[in-house]
């Protein structure tokens, strides 16, 4: 039997994942041509490489179709209810860092905290007759965060890209999005709330708690963990 390791199938996330494993003696590479999504693992036996879109890795882990997977911790928390009962974090890998934050226009000089946002949302609803719109693709994380912090009178509007532009286009009043440097936010005249950090995400190696783990698989995992210094 082999254990299946799911890794992002392209881009910087794939390159850095390959480098992270390579530095620890586990050589991951694509087999065949550059365009083919099949992979090979050298340096450790009984591990099979599965190349997947980073966004699909949480689902595959939860379904137990892969034993291990590398993806952003934000994606696991967003896509899996009760994520910590379905997967376990084995290693924070130290790259792919990005913060899921709430940002509002810089011109809102009266809004710096979630408390301000809540008060502004109440007044906004009275003035405009609808709930303040927050554009995001992270519906679960944002809604949980705002509920825990007692923010009301808002609505989430879906935005799958160019989220920072929604405020200028007046399809949203605020945004909840991933940022690494904040440059795009500033370019769109937005600022981050001082207590608006929802989740500091990074690439993470996850173990599926729902996959079938035979004795042999456990031995393989133990060996892999020694190599990865976990």
């Amino acid at each position: 039997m082999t254990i299946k390791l799911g890794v992002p199938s392209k881009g910087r996330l794939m390159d850095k994942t390959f480098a992270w494993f390579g530095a620890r003696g586990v050589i991951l590479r694509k087999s065949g041509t550059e365009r083919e999504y099949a992979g090979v693992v050298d340096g450790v036996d009984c591990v099979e490489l599965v190349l997947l879109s980073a966004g699909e890795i949480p689902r595959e882990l939860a379904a137990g179709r892969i034993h291990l997977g590398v993806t952003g911790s934000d994606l696991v928390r967003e896509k899996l209810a009760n994520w910590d009962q379905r997967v376990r974090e084995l290693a924070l890998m130290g790259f792919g860092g990005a913060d899921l934050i709430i940002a509002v226009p810089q011109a809102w000089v009266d809004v710096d905290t979630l408390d301000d946002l809540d008060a502004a949302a109440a007044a906004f609803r009275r003035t405009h007759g609808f709930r303040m719109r927050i554009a995001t693709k992270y519906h679960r994380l944002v809604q949980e965060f705002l509920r825990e912090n007692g923010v009301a009178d808002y609505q989430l509007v879906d935005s799958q890209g160019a989220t920072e532009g929604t405020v200028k286009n007046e399809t949203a009043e605020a945004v909840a999005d991933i940022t690494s440097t904040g440059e795009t936010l500033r370019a769109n005249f937005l600022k981050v709330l001082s207590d608006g950090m929802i989740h500091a995400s990074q690439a993470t190696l996850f173990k599926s708690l729902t996959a079938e783990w035979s004795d042999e698989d456990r031995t393989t995992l133990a060996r892999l963990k020694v190599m990865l210094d976990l």
Partner: protein
Amino acid sequence: MRGAVAKSAARAEAARLMAHFADAGAVPVETALLQPAETLLDLYGEDIRARAYVTADPLRGEQMLRPDFTVPVVQMHMQSMAEPARYSYAGEVFRKQEMDETRPTEYLQAGFEVFAADDPADRDAEVFSVITNALAPLKLRAVTGDIGVLLAAVQGLATTQARRAALTRHLWRPARFRALLDRFGGRTEAPASRAALLAASDPFAKAGVEVGLRSHAEVAARIHTLRTDAATPPISDEQRALIDAILSLRETAPNVLIALRDISVDLPHVGPAVDRLSARLDALDARGVDVETLAFEGSYGRTSMEYYDGFVFGLYADDRPELPPVATGGRYDALTRVLGQGRGVPAVGGVIRPELVVQLRGGS
């Protein structure tokens, strides 16, 4: 097969409850399974998405699988406005269970709702006794409360209307309510950024380019509100203690009444709400409810869906603490005003979960 047997037992129980409600004068009504999401989202906010199934219709937009009957029954009643009206219903409701997979996502509710302006105390008592009588052999424990007392207490605080409104808005979010009460009471500092904003000679110095729908005037209005608030003296420790005293009440109803009478000496604004509680207890007594031992909790109903604004109650099986309440209910006058665009009807109702009744009888 076991699921099918349980379902048909629950349906039979729902039918029995419908007959019981018919004896109490209720007219059976039906509502659609698919409800427009917009109405429910406007009422409950985004939080309801974590509890209700949302689905999309290409023409009608977002639809929700009925999370409860109250809203559609109120809407139906607001069109006819015939009074007094008593309705009964039974059918599936759907609730997402993100935290606990053992809880059902689809279950029956059988309910009884009364829309009537006359004698609200007796209407409260009527709903309570119709629901409890339907379940009498199960020996359930009743817990009651009164959101109206809390609302009145907040409205009676000696402070600005803005602060009272902020507290009222968060009455159903206990942690947030506490944080606001502490800040208005001067127990916690305002954030440093707010102090800096209010101290600035030109608060708009760093405003930069204005984007979005929320205008300069709206920001200026909020700064004005913040300035007014900063100049407002704190809510006194005595007044905060009165709110705490009401929230921490856990006693038999007659003892609570005595305690609230004491509180109303210092907070006269709760007087009328306490009178209503007193009248309700009399009405319950007249209907044969054992008021002497009836439990009352000052915080009861604060964490449920935020439409109750008066009497609230729940019935619990003490030997099955893992089960949710078998029945819940309460008064929701304000909800009818929201759904009726200002035109309201005094309304009170309760629902029973037939599956739980069957389980408690030992059916499964």
